[in-house]
């Protein structure tokens, strides 16, 4: 179950946020019947959706572009970064599905790194990121950790 798997993952890796893990995995349509391998894939799929939501929200922000040119440029870069993060999470899913766990974990880490670069873009612009962008960055990082930790439990 998500609860037991998240607990095991948190015990193994203290970076795992147990409450976040249970909340996000439990809502996924595949989680009720999933074993550990299945839940690792669920985590990767949640990552795909999280990055996709970030892209959606950034587009919404760009639909009314901010007057600050640097902030707008940062948002545009973030959209590209989260597009790439979405792909990386999808590739993490494929890797785990192929039972190539090293590749899967590598892609999950790559996705988290891409999301962090969004935060860096705002930092360089000396602009505070919008709350929803900051939130998706945090969640992308968290779900990548969850995905990696659960993958380590397989076997």
């Amino acid at each position, binding site marked *: 179950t998500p609860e037991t798997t998240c607990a095991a993952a948190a015990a193994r890796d203290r970076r795992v946020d147990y409450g976040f893990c249970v909340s996000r995995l439990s809502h996924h349509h595949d989680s009720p019947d999933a074993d550990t391998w299945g839940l690792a894939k669920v985590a990767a*799929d949640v990552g*795909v959706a999280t990055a996709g939501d970030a892209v*959606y929200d950034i587009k*919404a922000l760009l639909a009314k572009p901010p*007057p600050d040119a640097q902030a707008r440029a940062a948002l545009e870069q973030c959209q590209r970064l989260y597009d790439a993060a979405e*792909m990386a999470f999808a590739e993490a899913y494929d890797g785990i599905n192929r039972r190539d766990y090293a590749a899967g974990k590598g892609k999950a880490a790559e996705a988290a790194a891409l999301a962090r670069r969004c935060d860096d873009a705002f930092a360089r612009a000396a602009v505070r990121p919008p709350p929803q962008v900051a939130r998706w960055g945090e969640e992308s990082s968290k779900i990548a950790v969850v995905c990696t930790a659960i993958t380590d439990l397989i076997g």
Partner: protein
Amino acid sequence: MAAAAEIGGFAAARVAVATLRPAAHPAPAAAPQQPRRAVAAQSLRTTATEALTADLAGTTNGAVHARMNSKATSEITSQAVTANSRRKTKIVCTIGPSTNTREMIWKLAETGMNVARLNMSHGDHQSHQKVIDLVKEYNAQNTDGNVIAIMLDTKGPEVRSGDVPEPIMLKEGQEFNFTIKRGVSTEDTVSVNYDDFINDVEAGDILLVDGGMMSLAVKSKTTDTVKCKVVDGGELKSRRHLNVRGKSATLPSITEKDWEDIKFGVENGVDFYAVSFVKDAKVIHELKDYLKSANADIHVIPKIESADSIPNLQSIIAASDGAMVARGDLGAELPIEDVPLLQAEIVQTCRSMEKPVIVATNMLESMIDHPTPTRAEVSDIAIAVREGADAIMLSGETAHGKYPLKAVKVMHTVALRTESSLYNPTTSPSLVASAQGLQNEDFSPSQLSKMFGSHATMMANTLRTPIIVFTQTGSMAVLLSHYRPSSTLFAFTNEERVKQRLALYQGVIPIHMQFSDDAEETFSRAISSLLKAQYVKKGDYVTLVQSGVTSIWREESTHHIQVRKVQV
């Protein structure tokens, strides 16, 4: 009893809406505005407001409220529900020699075609240009009715032999032929899937089957047939890879011919590319980069048809705008008993990613030669519909079959009948992630959109109303489609390209309309359009959704669900 059940269903929807109220932000509801036009709002109104401030300082989330008066409740629950006779699952038809005339294209459209597929493995640009022009002419004449999208299907890097009912044993020294005629399967001749094959081989070439499992020496050729002698024999099954030894040793992901066809598609403004033999996401990115550089707003649909694509399924679909389950080649490459499971997996993956999925190949194969389907084929269509495919596709049946219109009619009828057994008023089975009841967390546009998609669908299902959505980008219509509302989704858009694209999505009837600065005027014109087309009638209720990435008529991003009565 029935009325009580309906009231109960509505109460459930109301409770669902109430759970969305964030405890930390109990904002007061805005006073309902009275309509200024003939089309009047009746009672039920659900509103949430979010302001996206220019300085990116953040958002202020409003409360979610559902309000209703008793008169409207009575009217809604007593409204006679007429059967929804509109098919939701879309039909893609391959256009070929049997159907590439004005008369036949019109008839296909009237019978149920939603997307016209051009198979670039056959024919030339001139013949495909003719079809494109005819489809555009049809669309220009039917602005309020069925819109036909255009899908260009690339040949891809591989050449394959055709289907054979039983494996053919090839013996060393025997003569055997490959023909570009379609649908040929005899003891000594089978089809290939590519017209220019006849020009790509020469006498003296060695043809390799499946990379060398069998080989044949080309002896001579006619205008449509390559005559060979078997060098190394074996069992020839359906859809084998064919290569010429020493040529195309390294196949590009997109061939030179494909690029020519893609440019042809850009020049003609097609709506979709179906890309053949996609093995990973790289080819999708390559094509999308090209389309972006060409400023072409065309969606990319990979055909999942090779064994190599399955391990990369998630990333291929993530990179794409949808997918096609091309079962013929899947069955040739993988154990045939795996095909139903793979179909279900591909459909589910697409649905969970909110992307359209087409199920293709052999759906009514027998109707190429026979006027009635087999029972197994009927079941096959029903399964695809039940799995939630956005579209189902006809290939040879409409391209070169004897009974193309009958095939479309069968597909239409079976899909419609299957759909009628799927939906009930109070449930919305969906693979899209359910809207989460977020407590003490800020709402973001993406989550608000999902919540409103989910709850608009629940409301429409409970009250048995169609949904009307106004969309500039198509995103809200796509989201609503993926919640699979039981009734029809009328998507009004002011973008022709968006209208064309939405033709592929399950349950969506796209209609082009210019938006007014006044919301009520736009709604009034939309209702007039639906009345004229007899999609709705006076006294019907509709669920109106105003939401999406870009707001219409307001500075703030306001998400708004209303149930309104059609009045003239």
